[in-house]
Structure formats: structure tokens, C-alpha cells
């Protein structure tokens, strides 16, 4: 797109839409029917199973990591390679059962930067 030359700028800013290699998601598992709370390996197994059901062996082979997991609040931080971000999110959305009890994955935050998951303006409490 041709624009008139701006006066000599001191800096230049470039924004890349798909520059990052990984995408990070903060998800929360909801178990309304009171199933046993999964540990970290069980959570990874659940995520890989969800990918396998929706996207087959190719989806199950996506490099997905559980970076942090809190068993009390069932909150986890997942990391996935950027090209598999849509596959992971869609698989988590459609995963409805854990050990034959209902479950739901709520995606709270996503970002290509891990540091961005540290602050969440939705959970900000204003005094």
C-alpha cells in the first residue's frame, strides 16, 4: 500500500500476526457431576484423547504440554505449537466426558506470550 512518506521516524514498529512459535492457553476443567479430580498426567491424557477423537492420529501427535496444573482449582496452562492452536481449542471444546462423567473445558485466556497469562483483567478485583 503506497502512502506518503512520513517525516523521518525515530523508530519503526512491526507487528507479526503469526510470529510466535507456541500458543499458550489457560483452561479450567469443570466437573459438575463430581468425578474424581484428575492429576497432571490424567489431564494430559484427557487432552490427547480429545485431540485423537476429533483430529485422529495426526491431531494426537501435536506437541501439547501441560506447563502448570493446580489440582484444587482444576486450572491448567497448556502450550501448543501455533499451527495446532485451532485443533487444540476445537478438541477441548468438544470433549464432553471424563471417565464417563460430564466435563467441560473453559478457556480463560490465550496468548502467544506466556507472560501475558500472568494478568487477567477479567479477574481483577477493584477495591
Amino acid at each position, binding site marked *: 500500500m503506497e502512502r506518503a512518506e512520513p517525516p523521518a521516524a525515530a523508530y519503526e514498529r512491526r507487528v507479526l500476526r503469526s510470529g510466535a512459535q507456541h500458543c499458550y492457553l489457560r483452561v479450567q476443567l469443570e466437573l459438575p457431576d463430581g468425578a474424581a479430580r484428575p492429576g497432571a498426567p490424567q489431564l494430559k491424557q484427557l487432552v490427547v484423547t480429545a485431540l485423537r477423537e476429533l483430529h*485422529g492420529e*495426526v*491431531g494426537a501427535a501435536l506437541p501439547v504440554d501441560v506447563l502448570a496444573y493446580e489440582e484444587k482449582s482444576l486450572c491448567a496452562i497448556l502450550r501448543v505449537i501455533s499451527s495446532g492452536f485451532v485443533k487444540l481449542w476445537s478438541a477441548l471444546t468438544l470433549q464432553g466426558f471424563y471417565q464417563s462423567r460430564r466435563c467441560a473445558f473453559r478457556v480463560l485466556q490465550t496468548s502467544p506470550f506466556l507472560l501475558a497469562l500472568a494478568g487477567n483483567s477479567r479477574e481483577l478485583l477493584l477495591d
Partner: protein
Amino acid sequence: MVRFKNRYVLCELLADDPRCRRCIEDRAVGLAVRDAIARAHGDYGLGRCCVSFTVKYLNAYTGTVLLRCRKDCRQLLSSALPLVRNLESRGQRFPCALRTLHVGGTIRTCQKFLIQYNRRQLLLLLRNCANEEERRSVRQAVLSCSIAEEQAQSGEEEEEEEEDGTETD
């Protein structure tokens, strides 16, 4: 113009067992390929590929299979074809493999390729003949097939592959 573009994948069905030839039928091959797509790409891949997926042409004698799919999901289909391991029909299961020969945009281009390919295969068969008698019988079979109307042979396939000792791979 906006239209649905298809891709036609020409494959060859390789099987060790000679009894497998009898149970090669389009429904069995279609089910085997669908099963492989479901395993490789899951529910999403299956739903995407099977919109316009059919077995367009099948020749049990030569093991030639022509599959049709949409242009967008040609890669999903091609990546799932090596995962076809068994062919099931009438309660029997035979190990088999699908080898992709050609991908074309129309049936006509695939047919042209198939004719050239079969010509080359005939020459290879002739070269790999073990003894003079086999050579003579292959030559005679090739010379005797014609596109004349009184014979029931179709004009597309101008080869009769015989079960010679060596199978080309």
C-alpha cells in the same frame, strides 16, 4: 466461474493373496479408505473428506482404483492412503496396500495416464519373463486384444495382465 473442483486419485491395490482379487469391490475399498481417514484425521477429517468421496472406477483384475475427493481435502486423503492395511468383504479380511500412481483434476487425464502406465507395465512384464514360453504367451495376449466391437473388451483398458512370476512393484 465458481464451481466445486475435484481431484481424482489413481491408485493401485497391491495384495499378496491371490484370493483377494475376488473380494475387491468398490464398497469394500471405499469403506477401507474411509476407515483409514477416520483413524488418521479423526471425526473432523472424516467429515471433511467424505463430502464428495466415492470410488469412481475399480478394476479387480489389475487392481486399479480411482478415487474422487474435493480439491481442498486431497492432502488429507493422500496422507491417509498409506494407512489402508486390510480389505474386508464378505466376512474375510486380506492384507493389502494402496499405491498412489497419479493425481489428476479430471477422469480424462487419469485415463490418459493409465493408458501410458499400462503400456510401460506391459513392456516391463515382457522383459521380466522367465522363459521363452511365457514371453510368447504374453506377446500373443497383447497382440490379440483389440478394440473391435464384436469383443466385449472396453476400449479404455488395452491390456490383459497375466499372473506372471514377477509382480512389478
